[in-house]
């Protein structure tokens, strides 16, 4: 599925070589720090560290990579209790009960809905069954796949997320299963600037 037209490709030419060289030159043009400055820094660090009780450093265990995952799983289990009867139905309806459902006729279908009474915009996208997780990324969250996960609203593959957006132009995309970047086929798209298939954009309402 990676060769689909709606999957953003990163062929490695995203970098602006001329601009990069200019930034590197600026970086190198800074006069080097003197050894005396490094010595003062080391002395200050050691003096500060000496004021911190020795004990707590010794008892701090090495962090393990799975601690975060275990803590998140425990939090989800305690707060959502997915084993209780009818939990899936209630969870699907709880946050968006007053909003209209998005039709799921297409394999990939998106929509954008400005919500009354605030800056929030609701993004909906319907994806094939088997999709494990979806996130929305854009200028508004630094293109961070972990910042704005979307919620699976029902068993028909409809994913949704609300994002607070100020009026203005916002560029965004969807990330499916942490790897595939998809454009929104139902929204206007950014002209391809040589970076790959076009991304989608929203011009938010003016107030």
């Amino acid at each position, binding site marked *: 599925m990676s060769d689909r037209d709606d999957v*953003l490709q*990163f062929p490695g030419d*995203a*970098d*602006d070589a001329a*601009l*990069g*060289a*200019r*930034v*590197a*030159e*600026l*970086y190198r*043009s*800074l*006069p*080097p*720090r003197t*050894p005396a*400055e*490094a*010595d003062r*820094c*080391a*002395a*200050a*660090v*050691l003096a*500060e*560290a000496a004021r*911190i009780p020795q004990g707590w*450093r*010794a008892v*701090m265990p*090495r*962090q393990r990579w799975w601690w975060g995952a275990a803590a998140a799983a425990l939090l989800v289990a305690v707060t959502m209790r997915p084993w209780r009867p009818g939990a899936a139905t209630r969870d699907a309806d709880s946050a968006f009960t007053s909003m209209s459902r998005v039709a799921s006729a297409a394999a990939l279908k998106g929509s954008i809905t400005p919500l009354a009474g605030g800056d929030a915009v609701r993004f909906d996208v319907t994806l094939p069954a088997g999709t494990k997780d979806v996130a929305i*990324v854009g*200028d508004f969250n*630094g*293109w*961070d*796949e*972990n910042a704005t996960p979307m919620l699976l609203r029902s068993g028909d593959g409809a994913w949704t997320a609300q994002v607070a957006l100020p009026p203005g132009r916002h*560029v965004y995309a969807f*990330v499916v299963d*942490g790897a595939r*970047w998809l454009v929104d086929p139902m929204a206007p798209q950014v002209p391809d*600037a040589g*970076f790959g298939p076009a991304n989608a954009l929203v011009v938010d309402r003016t107030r």
Partner: protein
Amino acid sequence: MTDAELVARTRAGDADAFGALVSRYYDACWRFAYHMLGERADADDVVQDAFLRAYLAIGRYDERDQFRGWLFRILTNQCRNAITSRSRRTRRFVQDEAAIESAATPVLGLQLGVEDAALQRALAQLDPLQREALLLKYAEGLEYTEMSRMTGVGESALKMRVKRGSERLRALLGKLDV
């Protein structure tokens, strides 16, 4: 002496070994912090904080990582924290284009040429996450895999930040270059 040997000696309580690590990486850390923060005093503070955190956590440093990468992971976090706390105080990095055009050239206290000063000003106006990605990519010369390991952000997101940051930087330079 290698980084690994200096780390081992530091763990054993050898202050001189830690001083050698600071001497080895102080300039690189300060250079990055200065370009992230735009102020010498802020760069001094952040670099010192980063080395302090590294010293306190050196018992948990994993030898399979490059020491420089591990240190820069701490440093980038400290820079982000400094920007967050400073933006609450001063909102120095404004996004308003009219303000950008009318803003006075910051006093850097460094001997920079006219062109460099324009680029320095343009960098300072970038979103901090875009500035961080551009510096790691263009100035530090890191691969996206290394940047991802260092920042905890996906490679696609980093490529997008570099792409968008480059576009923004070019647009700003178009206004600032005269």
